[in-house]
């Protein structure tokens, strides 16, 4: 349908149970404008009729940030200098991932009216959720910049491009999960709740509120479990963000004693780059797989909803 073909040779479209993944991707690409509209709609609708509007998208992460800050810095006294920046850099990318996957899971079911009546590549719905999470990511990034200026915390400027690599890896990974989960959720509505619970656990499996280097790397090495920890595909991007934005590999604690402590792993930037690239690659494969699963399940959407 998303054809604006020339007058002479009109584009053909085939409706069948067996459409190759590449054709699906081409369809998605052709509907990119629709994707933009859907993202815009989702954001507009979310904050329509609310007095503070988009500010709400900031308040909830700000609250999380404040709570973690109070708990870990003020109460537990972890002594990390500029801990807010450390927290925020990890939360920034995690929030993107979490919001995207969480909203995408229910998106096909929530838009059943559309799915049953209008023809368009349905994957777009899941991708639009990732897209709107991306918009919120952008807003939060702006707040992050303000924080960094206020606290005069400079990022590692030459490594800024790594952020985009990490972001791309997370975006593709989140898209793969989004497409897969949104389809599965049509058949098993539990998925939505399951995903919510799993994401909470997943959050703590990532070194966001604690420093990997300072807190658990020793124990992991001792038990030879480093590989297990790094099976978590969100960890490398999170650590990349911390490496670039927090940029205090080694510093003195703010607690009495002022010992010199490593807050970030002493890895060269290439380690981050390679790790993020691997995740990006795996995510791309997963994305294709997710599209295939989606294609198989899509055939019965209209009846299941």
């Amino acid at each position, binding site marked *: *349908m998303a*054809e604006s073909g020339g007058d002479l040779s009109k*584009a*053909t479209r085939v409706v069948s149970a067996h459409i190759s993944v590449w054709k699906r991707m081409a369809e998605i690409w052709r509907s990119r404008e629709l994707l933009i509209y859907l993202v815009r709609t989702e954001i507009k609708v979310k904050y329509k009729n609310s007095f503070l509007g988009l500010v709400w998208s900031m308040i909830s992460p700000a609250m999380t940030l404040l709570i973690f800050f109070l708990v870990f810095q003020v109460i537990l006294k972890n002594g990390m200098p500029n801990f807010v920046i450390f927290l925020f850099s990890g939360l920034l990318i995690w929030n993107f991932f979490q919001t995207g996957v969480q909203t995408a899971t229910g998106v096909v079911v929530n838009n059943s009216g*559309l799915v049953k*009546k209008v023809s368009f590549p349905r994957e777009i719905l899941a991708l639009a959720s990732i897209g709107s999470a991306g918009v919120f990511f952008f807003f939060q990034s702006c707040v992050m910049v303000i924080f960094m200026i206020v606290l005069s915390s400079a990022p590692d400027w030459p490594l800024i491009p790594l952020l985009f690599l990490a972001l791309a890896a997370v975006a593709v990974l989140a898209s793969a999960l989004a497409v897969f989960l949104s389809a599965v959720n049509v058949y098993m509505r539990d998925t939505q709740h399951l995903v919510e619970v799993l994401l909470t656990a997943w959050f703590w499996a990532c070194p966001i509120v604690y420093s990997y280097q300072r807190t658990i790397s020793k124990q992991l090495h001792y038990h030879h479990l480093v590989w297990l920890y790094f099976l978590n595909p969100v960890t490398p991007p999170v650590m990349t963000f911390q490496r670039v934005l927090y940029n205090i590999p080694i510093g003195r604690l703010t607690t009495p004693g002022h010992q010199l402590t490593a807050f970030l792993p002493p890895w060269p930037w290439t380690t981050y780059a390679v790790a993020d690239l691997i995740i990006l690659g795996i995510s791309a494969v997963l994305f294709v797989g997710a599209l295939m699963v989606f294609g198989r399940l899509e055939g019965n959407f209209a009846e299941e909803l």
Partner: protein
Amino acid sequence: MGNVAVDVQDVSKRFRLYHERYNSLKERLIHAGRTPYEDLWALRDVSFDVKEGETVGILGRNGSGKSTALKCICGVLQPTSGQVVVRGKLAGLLELGAGFQQELSGRENIYLNGSMLGMSKKDVDRVFDDVVEFAELGQFIDNQVKFYSSGMYVRLGFAVAVNVDPDVLVVDEVLAVGDERFQRKCMDRIKTFQKEGRTILFVSHSPDMVRSICDRAVVLSDGNLIGVGTPGEAVRLFRERLLEAGDVLALGIETPEVHDEGPGMPAELPTSIKVEGPQRDEHQDTTRPVRFTEIIPYFAANQDRRYLLPGETLIVRAAYQVTAPAQGVVFSIEVRDNSSSVLFMTDTEILGLGLDLPVGPGAIDFHFESLPLFDGAYDVVLGVAGKGGMLFDWQEPACRFEVMNPTRAVGVVAMPVRVALVPREWVDESTTAVGWANPAEAG
């Protein structure tokens, strides 16, 4: 021209009818592998094509699979097997305003809906004013659509769909929206589409609609394609299939009200009604001495066919039993259409027939020579009364018959019409007035 715009190739669609839905994980686990379901083939190996510039109708009863077919063509449903190839941009009107976002304004929804139908922002910019004008929304265009009246809502939906400049327009019975004027506007737009050589595929319950705008029609029954042909042929096929299935209600006709005045009326409405039973014999009351026993419609032209063609002869034969001698008996007959309006009523008194009936069985025939009716199912109501209007028996409906119109003319009354051009010399060229000189001789 001549190219195939929509090619439906061996499309089958299976639905699984679950006796119970198990949508949660727990239920899925408990009932793993033995979820009870039945296969329902909504479509079975349906193949047909629609040429470019053609208008094709899909006819079928409820549940015949016509909506499923349309959804497969639009791509809302995937066929279980087979495929549909669509050449050109397709705009599907399965439901007007289906893609609307309640919270957004009309303006935003036009863009959203347009992009869903495959338009770029530039395309929408170009037709935006036309859409607003067609939908007659005026200043409401910037209001949220959730505040729209249902009429405004569907008007906007239709306006967007017809302005996306589709090569193929697919319409599911959505044209019955809005007021009469807007409906006419929609029909005009569809006719313009036809003139522009676009392809239209549409489902309708109304054979009149199919007859008046379609070039061809496809008939579906229980998921099978039973015929493709000219609208007249297709409607005939469709009617025959309805009759075969014992479904006397023709398409587009609402279920008639159940007439249960008068005791002893059967609840269902068979084509011919046998009126007998022991309780009748017990009541040998002399106040109602004439009773109908059986009423049969008889198609003089072809008794095997289960419908009449316009202009054919219908004979209604009513058998009766007289239990006491009756003088001045009046039989009355009414023909009603499906909405119970009386099309025709007469009785033997009006016809100048004085009837004195002796005791015993008898029968009376009503001959309708050349029945001037078009499509529809008609009820015959019979009554018998005695002197002074004392009603002896009343059968409503006494029997039913159907008329099938093989031509493309539409309406209620089959008026015989002869057309001839007026000879050139009769036309006064200076005033273009036509001399009214004896048109009867003109032919």
